[in-house]
C-alpha cells in the first residue's frame, strides 16, 4: 500500500497566518514583561495556586493534544495497521509542535529558569520525583519526534543518503516514540498522587496514571480526526473520512472503556457520592464525562461514524473532555491551603493562546513547505 505525501501548494502568507502571527507577537510582548517584572506581573498565580494555565494548559493539556504521533505510531507500527499510514505524517507534525513548544513554554513558567539545566545534572537528580521522569522523558521524546519527522525534511531537500541511514534505524526511534509517551503521559497523572487530601476524590485515585495515559491516547486519535477534517475542508482537499471512519471504532472503544473504568473504580471505592453534591467540582466532573460519553456513542454507532459532521463533533467532544479532565484534576478539583482563588489573567491567557497559535502557524507553514499531506495533490492544481 504505497502512498506518497506532497507539499500543499498554497500561499504561505494568508489572512489566517497573519492573524496567528499577530497573536504570537502579543504573547511575545507579555513574555518579555514576565522576564522583566516577574511571574506576578503577568500571571495570577499565587501561594495557593502556584501552577496556572502556563503549566496546566501549555504542558499538561498541550502535550496530550500532541499525542497524535504517539497514537498513530501505536496503531500503524505496533498493531500493524498499515492502511492508516497516510495519517502518520500530519499526526507527527502536530505532535512535533505540540511537544516542542510545550517543552519550550516551561521556560516561561520556571521561576529560576537560568538554572533550568540543573534538571539534567545527574548529581542533582531526585529519582523519587515524578517531575524528573516527566522532564527527562518529554525532552527525550521531543528529540524522538524530530528524528521521526526528519525523513520528510530530508525528502524535501533530496538528501537521500542521510535519509536512508535514518530510515534504516527508524524502527528503534518509532519504538521509543510509543514507549516514551506511555511513560510521561502516565506520569502526568502520577504527579498528582502526592496531592492526597488536597485533591477531590472525584479525581484522586491510585489509577491516575492509567486514566491519564489512556485518555491521552484517545485524545491522540481524536486530534488526528480533528486535524484531517479541518485541513481537508479548509484547503478543499479530497476527504480522508473513509479512513478516519474506520479508525473511529478504535477511538470510540477507548473512550467507552475509559468511562467504564473511571465510573467503576469510583463506585467500587465508594466515593461516587462526591459526584452528586452539585458543587462546581461535581458539575465539571459530569461535563467531562458527558462529553466523553457523547464521543464514545457517536463513534461506536455506525451511522455516527459514517457522518463526517458527527464524527468531527465527537472528536471535538473527546478533546474537550480530555482537556477538562486535566484542567479539573490540576486546578478545579484541587483545594489549596488557605483562602486562595485562581482565574488566569488576560496577559497570562494571551501567552497560552500565543503558544497554541504558534503551533498552528508552524503546522500551516510546514504542510506547505514539506511533503506532509497524502491528499495534497501532486504538482498542485495551479501549476
Amino acid at each position, binding site marked *: *500500500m*504505497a*502512498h*506518497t505525501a506532497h507539499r500543499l501548494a498554497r500561499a504561505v502568507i494568508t489572512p489566517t497566518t497573519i492573524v496567528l502571527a499577530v497573536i504570537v507577537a502579543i504573547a511575545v510582548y507579555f513574555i518579555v514583561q514576565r522576564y522583566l517584572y*516577574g*511571574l*506576578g506581573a503577568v*500571571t495570577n*498565580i499565587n*501561594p495557593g495556586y*502556584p*501552577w496556572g494555565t502556563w503549566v496546566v494548559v501549555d504542558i499538561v493539556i498541550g502535550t496530550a493534544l500532541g499525542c497524535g504521533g504517539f497514537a498513530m505510531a501505536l496503531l500503524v*507500527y*505496533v498493531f*500493524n495497521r*498499515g492502511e492508516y*499510514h497516510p495519517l502518520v*505524517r500530519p499526526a*507527527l507534525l502536530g505532535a512535533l509542535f505540540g511537544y516542542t513548544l510545550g517543552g519550550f513554554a516551561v521556560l516561561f513558567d*520556571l*521561576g529560576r529558569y537560568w*538554572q*533550568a539545566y540543573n*534538571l539534567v*545534572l545527574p548529581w542533582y*537528580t*531526585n529519582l*523519587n*520525583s*515524578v*517531575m*524528573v*521522569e516527566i*522532564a527527562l522523558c518529554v525532552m527525550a521524546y521531543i528529540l524522538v519526534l524530530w528524528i521521526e519527522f526528519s*525523513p*520528510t525534511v530530508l525528502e524535501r531537500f533530496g538528501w537521500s543518503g542521510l535519509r536512508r541511514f535514518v*530510515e534504516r534505524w*527508524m*524502527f528503534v526511534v*518509532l*519504538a*521509543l516514540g510509543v*514507549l516514551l509517551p*506511555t*511513560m510521561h503521559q502516565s506520569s502526568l497523572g*502520577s504527579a498528582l*498522587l*502526592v*496531592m*492526597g*487530601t488536597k485533591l477531590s*476524590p472525584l479525581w*484522586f*485515585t*491510585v489509577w491516575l496514571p492509567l486514566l491519564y495515559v489512556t485518555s491521552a491516547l484517545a485524545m491522540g486519535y481524536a486530534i488526528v480526526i480533528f486535524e484531517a477534517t479541518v485541513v481537508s475542508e479548509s484547503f478543499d482537499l479530497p476527504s480522508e473520512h473513509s479512513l478516519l471512519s474506520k479508525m473511529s471504532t478504535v477511538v470510540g472503544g477507548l473512550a467507552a472503556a475509559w468511562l467504564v473504568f473511571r465510573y467503576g*473504580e469510583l463506585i*467500587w*471505592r465508594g466515593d461516587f457520592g462526591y459526584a452528586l453534591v452539585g458543587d462546581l467540582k461535581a458539575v465539571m466532573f459530569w461535563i467531562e464525562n458527558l462529553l466523553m460519553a457523547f464521543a464514545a456513542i457517536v463513534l461506536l454507532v455506525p451511522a455516527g461514524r459514517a457522518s463526517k459532521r458527527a464524527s468531527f463533533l465527537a472528536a471535538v467532544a473527546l478533546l474537550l473532555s480530555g482537556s477538562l479532565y486535566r484542567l479539573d484534576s490540576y486546578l478545579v478539583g484541587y483545594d489549596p*491551603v*488557605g483562602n486562595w482563588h485562581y482565574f488566569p489573567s488576560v496577559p497570562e491567557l494571551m501567552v497560552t493562546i500565543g503558544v497554541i497559535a504558534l503551533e498552528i502557524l508552524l503546522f500551516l507553514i510546514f504542510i506547505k513547505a514539506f511533503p506532509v499531506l497524502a491528499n495534497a495533490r501532486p504538482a498542485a492544481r495551479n501549476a
Partner: protein
Amino acid sequence: MTLDRRQFLKGAAFSGAAGAATVATGGEAAAVMRPPLDMPEKAIGMLYDSALCIGCKACVDACKSANGMPAEIPSTLAAWNENTWDTGESLSGKTLNVIKVFRSGTAKQKDAEDNGYAFVKRHCLHCVDPSCISVCPVTAMQKDPETGVVTHDPDRCIGCRYCVYGCPFGVPQFDVSDPYGRIQKCQFCNHLLKEGKIPACCDVCPTGASLFGPVVELQGEIDRRLAAEPGTNFVFPRGEIGSDRPPHEQAVPRYKKAVYGLTEAGGTQVRYLAGVPFTSLGLPAVGDISYARLAEGVQHTVYKWMLAPIIGLVGLVFLVRRNAADKSGSEDQA
C-alpha cells in the same frame, strides 16, 4: 526527660483522634505505598502552644531579623503604613513565620470556640516524610539526617514550584513579584543551630508558646500538659526545653485533647496544642499519611530497575521492525 519509642507510640495512640484520616483510595493504594520514613532519633522540633500565645508577634519580628527578610506591607494597608510596620498577613515570599488570629462572635474570651479568639503561628512543620523533598526534581529540598530540619538550596532550585503545589500545609512560597525570585520557607534557623543557638522565634517568645527542643522531649511536655488538670498552676518552660531559662507560671489552659503534627502527613517535628479546634485555626486536615509514599510507591513499582520500560522497548522494537518491514514497499517509513 526522654521517651523511648514505645512510650512515644502510646502518646500517638492517645492523640490519634486528631485527624481520623482515610486514604482516599482503595486497598490497592496501601499495597503500592512505600513504607513510611522514621523520624531521626535526635530530631529537634518545636511545640507551639496556641493557648500560651499572646499574639505579640515578637517571633515574627525576630524571624525577619534573623533571616534577613524584608518587611511586608500589603497593598490594602500601604495608604497609612509608610514602611514603618511589618504587617504580613500570611506566609509569603517575604514572610517565613506569621501569627494569625481566629475570631468568633464577640471575640471576648481567649481560646474559646464561641465568642472567642485564639492565635496560631504558621511556618514549616518540618515533616518526618516531607512531600516537598519527594517532589523536588533537583534535590533542592533536603532533610538533615540528624536533626530532621528541612532546608532549601536556592542554587539548585529551578523554580518549578512543585513543592508549593505539593506541600500539604501550604508552606513553601515563591515571590512572584521578583523576576529573580526564590522559594522561601522556615529552615528552623539552621544557621543559628550551627552556632549552637536556637530558632529566633523560640528565643524571643515571652511566654514559652514557641518552645524548642528534641521532639521526644517536646512530646513528653505535650503529654504532661494534656494530662494536667485545667486551672491548676503549671510551670511552662521558655525558649528551650530543659534549659536554665526562667520558666513561666500560669494556670493550665483548657486544651483540646489533641496534638496537631503527631500523625499529620506522617508526623511533623513542629507540633501544636490549642484551646480551639485546629481546623478553626486554619490548620488543614491533611490525613495521617504522607502522600509522598503513594507517589513514590507507584513510580518505583512501575519503574523498578527500569525493567518494565526496557522489556516494553524490546517488545516494541521487535514489533515495529517486523511491521515496518511489511511496509517496505511504501515510499517512506515515517
